[in-house]
């Protein structure tokens, strides 16, 4: 394992896991999968108890002052750790890009936001680019075709497109990673957008679903639960359900007992 920057060589890095409000509410096994991966990579994982949500819903809907308060309390909460890791590109972007912007008028807070930003990572990118760790592989997805959907935040805010693909290829023995015909376009989630403009959102997710189906994928994965809830929420109503939907941490950590996000919803 490469040495971990800013950390004494002898100690294992103290990593705070920020599970995100969506994982907490809808898909707890993603949080546990993330812990497994981080522990395999030699981290001491801590889940700060007082964590809630990064504040994006308010930040993106005009509640700037409330978002500033959330940014401050989140910074305070996460400051003591060597790293902060999130199983979500969008929330990582919020902490690492938008907190510093929100607090740019306040020198002291801006400094604290910058320092949090420099140690905040999306899970896949952390495992590959920061730790370069060797993780256990598994063959439970042998022969399966996997399609990876870049979330817009992973792609455009974090420039994080190769780490997740590299991990799938390395850890899921015998699986076949396929690309979408149009990997650039948004799935139509957009947080509150999906409830403000449900029919536009439906059109976008329907286009995305067609693209995924055309790849012949057995499983769709992504690093953002928002996109996944959107895609799974839509495809759950299809007959037959065209593919399984899972968070990338689940397939990397071989955490596959939990059924696909598309199953279990009533018709």
């Amino acid at each position, binding site marked *: 394992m490469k040495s971990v920057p800013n950390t004494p060589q002898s100690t294992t890095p103290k990593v705070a896991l920020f*599970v995100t*409000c969506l994982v907490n*509410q*809808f*898909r*707890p096994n*993603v*949080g*546990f999968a993330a812990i497994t991966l981080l522990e395999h990579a030699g981290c001491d994982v801590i*889940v700060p*108890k007082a*964590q*809630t949500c990064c*504040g994006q*819903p*308010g930040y*993106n*809907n*005009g*509640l*700037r002052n*409330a978002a500033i*308060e*959330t940014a401050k*309390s989140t910074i305070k909460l996460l400051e003591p750790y060597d790293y902060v890791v999130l199983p979500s590109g969008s929330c990582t972007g919020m902490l690492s890009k938008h907190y510093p912007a929100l607090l740019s008028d306040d020198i002291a807070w801006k400094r604290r936001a910058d320092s949090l930003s420099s140690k905040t990572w999306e899970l896949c990118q952390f495992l590959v680019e920061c730790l370069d760790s060797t993780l256990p592989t598994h063959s439970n997805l042998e022969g399966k075709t996997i399609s990876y959907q870049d979330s*817009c*935040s992973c792609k*455009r805010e974090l420039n994080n497109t190769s780490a997740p693909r590299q991990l799938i290829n390395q850890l899921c023995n015998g699986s076949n990673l396929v690309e979408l015909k149009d990997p650039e*376009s*948004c799935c*139509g*989630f*957009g*947080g509150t*957008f999906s*409830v*403000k*403009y*449900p*029919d*536009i*959102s*439906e*059109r*976008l*997710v329907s286009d995305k679903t067609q693209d995924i189906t055309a790849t012949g994928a057995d499983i769709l994965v992504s690093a953002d639960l928002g996109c996944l*809830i*959107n895609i*799974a*929420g*839509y495809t*759950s*109503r299809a007959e037959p359900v065209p593919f399984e939907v899972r968070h990338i941490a689940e397939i990397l950590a071989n955490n596959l007992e*939990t*059924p696909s*996000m*598309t199953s*279990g*919803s*009533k018709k």
Partner: protein
Amino acid sequence: MKPGKPTSPETQSNPPIHSETSSNQALFFKAKSSEALLDDTLQQALKKAQGGFIEKRSQAIADVENFDSYKQQAQLVKNHTLDHLAYYLTQFEENVTKNGGHVHWASTPEQLNNIILHICERRDAKSVTKGKSMISEEANLNAALEAAGIDVTETDLGEYIIQLAKEPPSHIIVPAIHKTRQQVEALFRETHDLGERDLDNIAALVDEARLQLRQKFLDADVGITGANMLIADTGSAMVVTNEGNGDLTATLPKVHIVTASIEKVVPDLESASAILRVLARSATGQPITSYTSLFSGPSGIEDLDGPDEFHVILLDNQRSQMLGSPFEDMLKCIKCGACLNHCPVYSAVGGHAYGWVYPGPMGSVLTPLMTGLKQSSDLPNASTFCGRCEEVCPMGIPLPELLRQLRNKEHEDHLTSWKTRFSLKGFMWGIQHPRVFHWITKTLRMILANSVLTRLLEKHVLTSWYSSKELPKNYSKGTFMEQYQQDSKQKKSKQKKS
């Protein structure tokens, strides 16, 4: 700054900012976008157009060695010019005057129309040809001219089509993008005297339009064009087109009027070429458009043709208010249309849903700033914040951030519904109180695990989500936090025992 020096009496009054004539329909985005999604012909036209633009642009950018450095140079030009806007506008006016032309300043679209009507009246103009001009769309100039009994003909093919169809443009560079070939054919058959002629391919349609337009060009008393740039140190207006219609509009009639907004000025030809380098590549994927023309005043004694009067009307329409405001970046826009072509929302609903002259991400910023946020409060919300517009914008305009700022303003000005405000405020308060938050998430999980309660939620609270989607089932026995704390307790008690 405010460009002063009104040159016509009309410009001295200070009428209300928001143009009645511009028929702002932006208030109806939601309803109109839903209609657009159900319009199969429109959907067909949009699908076809979008893919083409995206591919051509990316090819054009791949063809040059370092597009990023082109972008940087173009942005430097705009930043510099905006920092010294008053200086360059004054220089531009001086040079136009030196060349024998006239510069007029219009604060509002109404003033712009009045200045043009005044010129037309003085020249006893019966017929006007127009090159494509978004500024005249802001002012709804055609309606004003028609009301004065003047025959107006749009000469850009797309503009010509939508003029016949009596529709506004749906795209800033391809105004008739929402029309299929079949629709254009039907329109020509309806409005032209065609007899039995075949019109079943694009070339035949273009020929037909050319035939109709030729006489109009020759008959016109006044030609009105827009300008892609105004060159301060030569006093010229630069117009780029692919059809050459701009040149015929500018040179055949006796009077040429240029309508342009104040941020179109650049210092010199060198700066203009920095912008040209990114403009066509971002817009249509061409290295440069077929025609790039400079108009620098009335014809001289030695010239064989050209107008004998040359006017430039500079429109402000709220732009000077953007200078020095958090929205100043929007003044860097060169109207290339790349943000429209790459926007998932624009691509799904087309331009008319946006209700005013400018659609897509740039329109969702500009329309509220120019016509009032209250009248267009849906627009800043019509974005998933996917960030693709900012990525492709050659001028590096942070469109999502500008939309976010408009959302802030909507919240501050109480333009959002009380329900939205109440739930967002409640949510943001909740996440500041972890105990409350965790109690709520626990309760919500239990509600979602109960099919009767979920049905209530579906029918009464999350109706719009459930209109096409399910919520995923949480297969764990609790929220992550509950589970994690339980697991840690068990671990601890095990450790104690052993």
